């Protein structure tokens, strides 16, 4: 769905037309701020490195078991800050910096961290006038606090892993009284723009001919026709991080850009500010719908992460450097080797709140994922059907249309699990209602879908039509739960329904009430196979600054400025809670969101917003979802086919082929585009699309298992190659291919008219098997693969076992009891391992009652064995093993199955040209212990 206007809306909302029409097919950049147009970013970016006014007051150091506190002073204005240091379990260091005595509390982001963060003891190794050395537990890791200027260095052995304020760009704009209304109690700051920048500022003023003019934008700022009143004045914060030895940094989604982050010297910083960007452009650092302030730093030795827990507008500057160029504290001089060590410098700037940073020290990529998961939780485990194919369009016109599309899938023998309804299904964009003309009998429709064992998603957006006859609105108003404008009245803005209120989802009371609205008796026409989609939750406000809410709007006592990037997460959270509650806590929810923040992975799926039917948009879907996966959000997808514009048949087919191998697989289209259900492009293309979707369904057991793992461990499902091959520098910038889990490598065809693709197969001494032909290829090579329109280059890693269900049916639910086929791909050492995870596919019983099957599959010494990984689990399945393919095998004389103390012989076939051994119908139950021996 979109911030695009259709004709009717355009006529209605003349106000907003000028905002978004533009007439061209690219984003209107003028609608969105550059760093220069964002006063705090401009102020902060003007600071020059190497002049930090901050000094640690070592005599204020206090160390309890797991918490160290220390005061910092800004020598220019004498404002004291409080530094807190924590050592968290799992090799994480938390650094918090706040004002020692702020005029009033500064916002600290709630509801993002999960549970209490278990701490580990800190101890002082040494202390002198220049600083303190702390032990970070094992692995000879130390934290060095230098006093003048203040800086932190984390070291392992003789190596600096990461430094804070090493460039002296720590800047903390303390809360102050406005001097034109009240005498300034601290005369020192009259000439100040950013704390600590006094000196430069003076230099500048000298250049300006001594004009003693206050910097613009401290107490008010204007963008286009919108004025931000800024009653709290300047509140921004900034801190720099140096990463010696690091050349590759990743993460900080959402940007339509490459996987590897680029340096921002001389350009715009990466921006994190959830925005509804109409027809976004590719390969630039503009902010998009969601923000996860997490960056990963990687080199061949180590992977680390920086989690900047701040929900205000944030900008991130990245520059590459060499380690020798930065000013190091004296006590570090001896450890620094060659000055030619590459280094990446990162600087975070946020508009308000406090500095609260989690430094995740890895050292392996998987460690960083675990560390981050311990902070913000893991991917929610979606219902199995959520991993199937989703058919969406803005809009399916009416119940007959839904029925016809559903039948179309059956007529063309194409599976799907969810059909989606966009905003037009509602009665005048009043969410939780149905258009009485087009959808008069929603339950009848939902039953029709249920009869096919399929499901539906209907959109529920967070903007609420201001209409006294609309129950949702009148109740929120009666409960006084709307976001307020700065004068205390209900904030109202324009969105799809026209004038709309925005519920204050930061308020737990609001969220609880919202969740209760999903109860079957509250949400009329809903039933258990109806799920939800939250769009426009940045929040999108057509007539607001940058198409969002005024920063001086109020959420309780906090400004929108403080909570902006959290709003979408809260909407998603409340909706997800609603879907859980309506089933009495038994059914797993499925909720898609467009806006997100750190922690959104706990609530469901995310998609990359309103993309376009262009080849470059297909290409960018890979790095965009890879970046999200790196920061915990695994259930990611892009609109298959492209939202705006109309794809050629070739692009559509290629997009289906790519989407079939990405986590969230949904086709979607703009209202103004021609219909594009999979069978509308001629029989050949229908067959190609059918084949792509069917490949997806055969792999559902593998996908499901990956998501179970992601839920349990926080490992991403869709992974960049470097995550599995962290020492192979050739993988560090690859973002046109990816791994699903560790075992499948996908290089989709994303070039128009492609005759071949070159895929990099990683792993020295490893082998990869083409999943279609079973041909074996060596690792650590660039492999040219000729392609036709039906090609989706996918490889299975030698050494892995992938379970499939090759009997593709109408929906995933229909395949519930179907047998498995095991694809055992042998490594050069003739071993392979894999897992098989089975549960009921839709409830929390896997968690609450341990109702699941989780088995390890191991091939070694010519024997394939299935063993229970969790003996305490209990679940039974009708599914069985119908076939085992062993790739890279040699021909056995005999194959026997050992089960229940009995031994039976298993028929087999051997295909010599590709060395494929097929075991015919061994027949054991998928939950049983068994061993198959090749003799």
């Amino acid at each position, binding site marked *: 769905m979109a911030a*695009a206007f*259709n*004709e009717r809306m*355009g006529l209605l909302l003349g106000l907003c037309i000028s905002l978004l029409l533009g007439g061209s097919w690219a984003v209107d950049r003028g609608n969105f701020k550059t760093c220069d147009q964002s006063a705090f970013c401009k102020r902060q970016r003007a600071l020059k490195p190497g002049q930090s006014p901050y000094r640690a007051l070592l005599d204020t150091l206090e160390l309890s078991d797991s918490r160290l506190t220390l005061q910092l002073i800004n020598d220019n204005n004498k404002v004291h800050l409080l530094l807190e240091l924590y050592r968290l379990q799992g090799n994480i260091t938390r650094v918090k910096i706040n004002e020692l005595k702020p005029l009033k509390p500064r916002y600290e982001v709630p509801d993002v961290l999960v549970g209490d963060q278990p701490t580990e003891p800190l101890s002082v190794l040494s202390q002198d006038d220049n600083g303190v050395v702390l032990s970070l537990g094992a692995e000879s890791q130390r934290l060095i606090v230098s006093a003048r200027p203040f800086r932190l260095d984390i070291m392992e052995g003789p190596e600096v892993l990461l430094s804070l304020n090493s460039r002296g760009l720590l800047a903390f704009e303390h809360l102050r009284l406005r001097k034109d209304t009240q005498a300034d109690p601290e005369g020192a700051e009259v000439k100040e723009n950013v704390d600590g920048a006094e000196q430069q500022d003076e230099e500048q003023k000298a250049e300006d001919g001594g004009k003693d003019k206050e910097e613009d934008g401290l107490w008010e700022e204007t963008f286009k026709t919108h004025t931000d009143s800024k009653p709290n004045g300047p509140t921004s914060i900034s801190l720099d991080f140096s990463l010696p030895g690091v050349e590759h940094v990743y993460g900080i989604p959402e940007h339509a850009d490459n996987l590897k982050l680029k340096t921002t010297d001389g350009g715009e910083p990466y921006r994190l500010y959830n925005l509804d960007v109409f027809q976004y452009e590719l390969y630039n650092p503009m902010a998009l719908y969601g923000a996860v302030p997490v960056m990963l730093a990687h080199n061949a030795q180590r992977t680390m992460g920086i989690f900047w827990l701040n929900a205000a507008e944030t900008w991130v500057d990245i520059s590459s450097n060499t380690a020798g160029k930065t000013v190091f504290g004296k006590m570090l001089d001896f450890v620094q080797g060659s000055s030619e060590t590459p280094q990446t410098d990162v600087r975070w700037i946020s508009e308000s709140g406090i500095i609260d940073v989690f430094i995740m020290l890895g050292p392996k990529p998987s460690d960083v994922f675990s560390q981050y998961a311990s902070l913000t939780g893991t991917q929610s485990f979606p219902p199995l059907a959520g991993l199937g194919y989703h058919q969406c369009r803005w809009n399916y*016109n009416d119940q007959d*249309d839904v029925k016809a599309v559903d039948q179309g899938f059956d007529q063309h*023998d194409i599976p799907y699990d969810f059909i989606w309804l966009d905003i037009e299904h509602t009665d005048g964009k009043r969410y939780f209602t149905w258009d009485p*003309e087009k959808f008069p009998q929603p339950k009848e429709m939902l039953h029709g879908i249920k*009869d*096919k*064992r399929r499901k539906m998603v209907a959109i529920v957006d967070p903007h609420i039509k201001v209409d006294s006859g609309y129950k949702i609105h009148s109740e929120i108003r009666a409960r006084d739960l709307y976001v307020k404008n700065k004068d205390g009245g209900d904030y109202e803005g324009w969105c799809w329904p026209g004038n709309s209120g925005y519920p204050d989802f930061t308020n737990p009371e609001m969220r609880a009430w919202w969740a209760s609205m999903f109860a079957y008796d509250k949400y009329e026409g809903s039933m258990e196979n109806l799920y939800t989609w939250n769009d426009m939750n940045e929040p999108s406000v057509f007539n607001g600054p940058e198409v969002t809410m005024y920063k001086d709007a109020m959420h309780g006592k906090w400004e929108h400025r403080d909570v902006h990037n959290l709003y979408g997460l809260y909407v998603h959270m409340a909706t997800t809670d609603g879907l859980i509650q309506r089933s009495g806590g038994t059914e797993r929810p499925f909720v898609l969101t467009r806006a997100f923040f750190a922690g959104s992975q706990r609530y469901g799926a995310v998609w990359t917003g309103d993309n376009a039917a262009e080849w470059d948009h297909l290409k960018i879907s890979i790095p965009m979802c890879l970046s999200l996966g790196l920061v915990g959000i695994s259930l990611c997808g892009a609109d298959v086919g492209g939202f705006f514009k109309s794809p050629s048949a070739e692009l559509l087919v290629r997009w289906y082929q790519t989407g079939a191998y990405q986590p969230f697989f949904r086709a979607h289209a703009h*209202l*103004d*585009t*021609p*219909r594009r259900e999979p069978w509308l492009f001629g029989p050949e293309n229908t067959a190609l699309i059918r084949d792509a979707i*069917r490949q997806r369904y055969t792999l559902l057991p593998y996908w499901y298992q990956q998501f179970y793992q992601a839920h349990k461990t926080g490992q991403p499902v869709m992974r960049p190659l470097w995550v599995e091959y962290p020492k192979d520098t050739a993988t560090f910038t690859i973002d046109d291919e990816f791994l699903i889990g560790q075992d499948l490598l996908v290089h989709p065809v994303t070039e128009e008219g492609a005759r071949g693709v070159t895929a990099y197969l990683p792993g020295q001494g490893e082998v990869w098997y083409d999943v279609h032909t079973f041909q074996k290829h060596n690792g650590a090579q660039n492999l040219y693969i000729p392609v036709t329109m039906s090609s989706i280059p996918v490889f299975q890693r030698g050494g892995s076992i992938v379970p499939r269900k*090759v*009997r*593709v*049916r*109408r929906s995933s*639910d*229909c*395949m519930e*009891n*179907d*047998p498995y086929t095991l694809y055992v791909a042998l490594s050069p050492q003739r071993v392979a391992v894999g897992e098989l995870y089975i549960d009921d596919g839709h409830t929390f019983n896997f968690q609450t009652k341990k109702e699941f099957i989780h088995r390890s599959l191991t091939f070694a010494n010519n024997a394939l064995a299935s063993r229970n990984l969790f003996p305490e689990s209990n679940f039974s399945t*009708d599914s*069985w093993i*119908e*076939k085992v393919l062993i790739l890279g095998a040699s021909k056995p004389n005999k194959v026997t199955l050992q089960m229940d103390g009995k031994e039976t012989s298993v028929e087999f076939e051997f295909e010599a040209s590709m060395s494929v051994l097929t075991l*015919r*119908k061994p*027949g*054991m*139950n998928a939950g049983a212990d068994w061993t198959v021996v090749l003799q």
Partner: protein
Amino acid sequence: MMTCAALLIVIGMAVSSAAAVEVQRPRGVPLSKRQFYEENKPFTCLDGSRTIPFDRVNDDYCDCRDGSDEPGTAACPNGSFHCTNAGFRPTFIPSSRINDGICDCCDTTDEYNSGAKCENTCKELGQKEHEVLQKMAEITKEGFLLKQQLIQEAKNRQQEKQSKLTELQNNKKELEEKVEALRTVKETAEQPEKEAKELHLKAWEEQKAIIRAEKDKAKMAEAFLELDDDADGFVAVAELQTHAELDTDADGTVSETEAQGLLGGVDHVDTASFEKVWDNIKDKYVSESQPVEPAPVDTPPEESNKLADNDSEQYPSDDDVQEEEEEDEEEDDYPEEDFDKAPPTVKTPPKKDEDEEAMPPYDDETRVLIDAAQKARDNFEESERALRDVDDQMKNIEKEISFDFGPDSEFSYLYSQCYELTTSEYIYKLCPFNRVSQKPKYGGSETNLGTWGTWAGPEDNKYLLMKYEHGTGCWQGPNRSTTVKLTCGKETTVMSTSEPSRCEYLMEFTTPAVCQEPEAVISSLHGHDEF
């Protein structure tokens, strides 16, 4: 472990009448293929790719690439299952729908092991289908009769059109000749008219010259009397000097020398000699009885009005001569052909001095000639108009004939008709072979949903769909277009409209013109049963 031992089953097959026949064959095999599945004999995949023991048929494991060894299980991804559906129509379903928990076959045979509670609905469906088909057959029968009428009517109409065309062609020939003849008559009548008019004009010009000379003389005499201030019968240098407007060196005064120059080098002139002097000064001379004229550029308002009335002429500098000159110029400026249609007397607006200055009416003789010419012109024009009419009619008929109205022109009756459908919001209008439009029910302008493009049905019958294209453009989208789906019906009606894709409309339209011969329908009705 689930190995569905569904090998051979006994299928009870009931023909709708009663007699039950029992035929043994593997599950999911149609009777027509029974011979390939012989019990206890090795089975060869229907594509011939391999031969397997018979106990591997329907053993829930796919051995044949073509799926033929598993007609009754879901084991093969490309298999198909045959439902007998006794009482209704037999059908094949993809084998992926076997035991998927969804009832596909009305005889429930696809869900033999899924726990799905299916009811046998074949009888009902059969009955319902029978009713539907019967109703359809009735409609088709009547529709087909109507279609025959339409074809007959179309034939008649076509013949009519053809003969009309022939008639028009003949007509046209005659008219062309007539036009030529009348053109000659007209030209013949116009020659004497022109000559008579020219003659009349020339006489009038001469007359005017005489009048002008007389006027000038009178003016001169008047001026002489005015100038001759001392009334001595001579105009002297001093007397001329009082008329500053006669200044020749533009210094604002008339010097003695200048005055002498004007008088031809002498000090005074008498009446007779003044004639020559008058020629020199009459352009500048201002009568003493008149106020001095303002500079000629300052146009008095009434003059500009006059100008406007007179269809604009070069701006006259002197009020005295203006009207006279105007008339002259107007007359001179009229080209000959205009002259024919509009004699100047008619067109010139009335003026003060009209009577004196106007051209006298044509004499009777000329008038007779003019009337005769006018009549010839009228006749000629009328014949030309008639010819154009015939041309237009022929073009229309040719256009109509050029449309593809179907193999027997059965759609021709739709031509130049319009059919409307009113929905809750809009009134839709289909004018076949012309355009489709949509108009808001409660006011608002009409939107073009497409103009006639082409027949767009499937290859075997393109007359089942009409395509209307290039309608009003959509915002950021394509131009609107409409597909009209034609189905057999007794009435010619728009049944429904929808917009399945933005700006792409679908209209369902019934007409007898697409009704098939009833025999074809009936045979398809009876063609399903296997026996």
